[in-house]
């Protein structure tokens, strides 16, 4: 290469301020608008006059509390079981891994009501596993708050697993190697290196999982039933309200939304901005 003439100035040199990349911002705005417009519809339609009275209804508070506690429990269970599962899928080799990876998505694709039926078939009092739970321990899972958690875990855990697996595959494995040379076994590497490095991914997965559990309806009503105070979560309450008074359903939905937004706005920025 003979001495090149250097370029000075490149392209239609900007006057300085970075231009807004419309190719990216425009679809982003459309997407955001699309996700939020329906919310506006709900807000417009909500019966503001009677709102206050409806919200303080103790049944609503019970359902809300049940929803929050079960979906949080479901998220915790999903974290405990799902993160190791994601790790196994991303970091180990075993025969049939490809199939197992696809199988993890089963609960995503199965219509939730069918999922609920499937859970009944397995864990119900006459179910494949449930009959032994019953005859040996006198345990019946369905129609208890535990059943709500089970239904939510079944439906929501795949979101966590797939999200975390994606994060694991995107992570630079050489840091794990470096930790191993420092004497860290696989478990230590996992907890002290891998986990912290994929924290944003786990955060995203947990948010998805929690939100999905919070909104879960079909599997819950089928597997856990719809008993106020025991298994009637907010989405079930919304469904019941829908039966007689669509406006009440909107109010309940808005309550659910507000609470979850508050939780997410508080937690997420903290979790994910590592």
């Amino acid at each position, binding site marked *: 290469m003979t001495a090149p003439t250097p370029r000075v100035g490149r392209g239609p040199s900007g006057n300085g301020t970075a231009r807004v990349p419309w190719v990216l911002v425009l679809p982003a705005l459309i997407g955001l608008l699309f996700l939020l417009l329906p919310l506006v519809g709900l807000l417009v339609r909500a019966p503001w006059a009677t709102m206050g009275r409806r919200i303080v209804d103790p049944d609503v508070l019970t359902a809300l509390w049940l929803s929050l506690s079960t979906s949080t429990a479901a998220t915790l269970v999903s974290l405990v079981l799902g993160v190791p599962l994601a790790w196994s899928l991303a970091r180990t080799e075993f025969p049939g891994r490809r199939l197992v990876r696809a199988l993890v998505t089963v609960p995503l694709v199965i219509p939730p*009501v069918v999922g*609920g*039926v499937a859970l*009944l*078939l397995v864990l*119900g*009092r*006459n*179910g494949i596993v449930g009959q032994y739970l019953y005859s040996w321990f006198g345990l*019946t899972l*369905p*129609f208890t708050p535990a059943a709500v958690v089970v239904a939510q875990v079944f439906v929501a855990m795949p979101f966590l697993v797939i999200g975390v697996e994606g994060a694991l595959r995107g992570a630079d494995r050489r840091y794990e190697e470096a930790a191993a040379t420092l004497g860290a076994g696989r478990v230590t590497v996992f907890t002290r290196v891998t986990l912290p490095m994929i924290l944003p991914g786990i955060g995203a997965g947990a948010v998805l999982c929690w939100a999905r559990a919070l909104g879960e309806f079909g599997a819950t*009503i*089928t597997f856990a*039933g*719809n*008993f*106020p105070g025991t298994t009637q979560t907010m989405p079930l309450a919304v*469904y*019941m309200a*829908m*039966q*007689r008074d*669509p406006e009440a359903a909107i109010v309940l939905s808005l309550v659910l939304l507000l609470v979850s937004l508050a939780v997410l706005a508080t937690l997420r920025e903290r979790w994910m901005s590592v």
Partner: protein
Amino acid sequence: SGDGGGERTENVELTVMAAASLTDVFTEIAESFEEEHPEVTVVLNFAGSGELAQQIASGAPADVFASADTTTMERVVEAGDLDADWAAEHGEEGLVFATNTLMIAVPPGNPAGVSSLHDLTSEDVSTAFCADEVPCGTATGIALEAAGLEVAPVTLEEDVRAVLTKVELGEVDAGLVYETDVISAGDRVKGIGFPEAKEALNEYPIGVLANSESPERAAAWVDFVTGQGAPIMREAGFGTP
């Protein structure tokens, strides 16, 4: 809950599984029942009839099942989930305690000017029906057949409530729903009766379940629904036998 017998004086729970369309009336009836039987707490579990049948088949701890149609009740009966003693006395296929008639529901102001079942055949009138698989869909089919009409709906909804929502929001010009729904919707829809509706009465059977831990109380609930409950049912727009 109680462990058999049901002879205890302390509080006993009575679990009633009822079709979602019975939400309002059963909630009201349960309050009256509890007043009369202070030792009993009625626990209501509302869902689609099909889902309830599934739960019963899986051994749900329930005492009473009230279905929105006879087909679903037949499934429960076939599975042997009805209390044999009670069935022998009150009917093998359950006891029909309410009926519901179809009505045409149109949005307020009736934009398409619908006045009869025949108007629904017009190309300019968009219509929502229940799907054949659900009770109101079956009834719709019978009514249309009786009227000798062929209607092309734009949608076949999963339940009558969904039809009502579409009418309320004006997404369709008319829908076939139950009289009870028109009443509960107040002035958000307008109901239009039609003669063929009588041909397509939808029947609500009720029965005591084999799983019941206190069949006597369950039977008492059934009696209460068919007795003192009848006026409440009628007020909501149900027919009672």
